[in-house]
């Protein structure tokens, strides 16, 4: 299996921006023959990617393109759809904000302080990644329902089966993102800068605001964006606690399910395309944020 070189791999073995490999040896076009399997591995990668991800996603575009403009507008901009977008965006933004505040505090506490069971608690932060969303959904619904443990405490104020329930579920789902993006940055932060600030007479709060916070801000925003992106598409944990009333507590992914149940495949595809476009924009923003974070991290 010598490397059969696909046609699009020309001379441009350009150095990527990875700083780690800047000093390491770069594989020149000739040297590549030392390691075999490029054609096989890249070929399989592209084949698998195309068949599992790209072609099915393109199928959605084709299906949506089969609609006329008025049909597309009717499906994606109906009052019910707009209400759902507003809820999904609003709830995801709010949940990500809650996670930004408490995620930052959690990361800070885990990195800087000592307390009992810290390791277990640290491990628990990843629970929303590991716990199936449906399980989280029914548990949260049981807790925040009017007769649930917390629902009872909040008595006249209803949480579950209102838009607030959506916020609760999305907070759970997005919880690990901010902690896990801020934690390593906080860990690598040089204490000497803080010492310098303190020796120059800064109070602790000033040091945090002027020295620490600017250093972790990019990672905090990345975590916020990741949490927001996850919340926007989330389905499993939300539907149990939301109540799913059209115009009030119906999230955007649920619109797609509704269209599918009415066999309106074109309408479902149209809403899917809108949501996919939103996901792309956020993905782009996250990439830019991460690049910024790298530059910031390198400068610090």
């Amino acid at each position, binding site marked *: 299996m010598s490397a059969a070189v696909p046609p*699009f791999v020309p001379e*441009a073995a*350009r150095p*990527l921006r990875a700083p*780690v490999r800047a000093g390491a*040896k770069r594989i020149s076009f000739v040297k590549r023959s*030392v*390691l075999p399997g*490029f054609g096989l591995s*890249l070929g399989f*990668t592209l084949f698998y*990617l195309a068949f*599992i*991800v790209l072609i*099915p*996603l393109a*199928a*959605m575009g084709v*299906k949506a393109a089969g609609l006329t403009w008025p049909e597309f507008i009717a499906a994606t901009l109906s009052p019910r759809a707009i209400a759902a977008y507003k809820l999904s965006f609003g709830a995801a933004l709010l949940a990500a904000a809650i996670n930004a505040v408490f995620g930052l*505090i*959690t990361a800070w*506490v*885990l990195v800087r*302080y*000592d*307390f009992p069971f810290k*390791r277990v*608690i640290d*491990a*628990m932060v990843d*629970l929303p*990644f*590991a*716990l*199936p969303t*449906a*399980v989280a959904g*029914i548990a949260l619904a*049981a*807790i925040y329902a009017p007769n649930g443990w*917390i629902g009872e405490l909040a008595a006249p104020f209803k949480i579950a089966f209102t838009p607030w329930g959506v916020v609760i579920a999305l907070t759970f789902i997005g919880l690990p993102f901010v902690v896990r993006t801020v934690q390593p940055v906080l860990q690598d932060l040089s*204490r000497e800068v*803080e010492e310098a600030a*303190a020796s120059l007479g800064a109070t*602790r709060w000033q040091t945090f605001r002027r020295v620490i916070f600017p250093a972790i801000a990019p990672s905090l925003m990345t975590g916020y964006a990741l949490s927001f992106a996850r919340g*926007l*598409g*989330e*389905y*499993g944990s939300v539907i*149990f606690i939301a109540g799913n009333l059209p115009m009030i507590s119906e999230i955007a*992914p649920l619109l797609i*399910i509704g269209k599918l149940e009415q066999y309106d*495949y074109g309408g*479902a*595809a149209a809403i*899917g395309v809108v949501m*996919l476009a939103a996901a792309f924009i*956020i*993905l782009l923003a996250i990439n830019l944020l991460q690049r910024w974070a790298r530059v910031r991290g390198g400068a610090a």
Partner: protein
Amino acid sequence: MSTARNHRSPLSESPLVRRLLIGAALGFLFLFLVLPLLTVFIEGLRGGIVRYIQSVSEPDAVAAIKLTVIAAAIAVPCNLVFGLAASWAIAKFEFTGKNVLITFIDLPFSVSPVIAGLIYVLLFGAQGLLGPWLSAHDIQIVFAVPGIVLATIFVTFPFIARELIPLMQEQGTEDEEAARSLGAGGWQTFFRVTLPNVRWALLYGVLLCNARAMGEFGAVSVVSGHIRGLTNTMPLHVEILYNEYNFIAAFAVASVLAFLALVTLAIKSVLEWRHGGDISAARA
């Protein structure tokens, strides 16, 4: 953390602030993590141990467990092979368009699970693009097991690749080149040099991939058709029981999944503590 014992005020917070912050963090985590987890087990056992065992061993539940295991048993190895191929190509060679490829590999993470299910319905469903051809040949993909497997593969697509790519990029190609110069064949180099170098990261990726594969709800829900005993995975079974107001059984089955999640977290933590450096220094 020696820093925590540092009481000099300019470099640390006052004990009061410290306690408030710890309290806020623990309160938040209790409310959003511990309480839901406790609820699952308490509600599941509310009807007593006998009801609990009945709930998880009735035929529909067993069928759901089997299907969940089957879906994961197909999806994880597929994504494992893909992860190895992708990371070999991306980490060991330089080529144009690499960054675009990496972005595409990450794509399933940013796609809503509902869309993950939807695309297969649009492709393979009765009114889908390939629907007429499939029904003419009597092939059922959507609302059957193949659709569930496909949707599971889609949502777990990047898990293993994204654990392996940064690690293999960091490790470079010296080891493999040395093996080659000593006369090892391609596969020999891969199995004797590359694979042992990444084995912990691989295990880590498989663990996360499996957890998601067994727990996926949204994508599988769209392609399943919810046929009891046939196309119901465990999370879908939980939903059906819950919607039938059979809360004790729903939480009993859910507690099995929650237990699985806890086991996953435990293994994951052990891997991070013991082999953190081998998993990847570049973990985000």
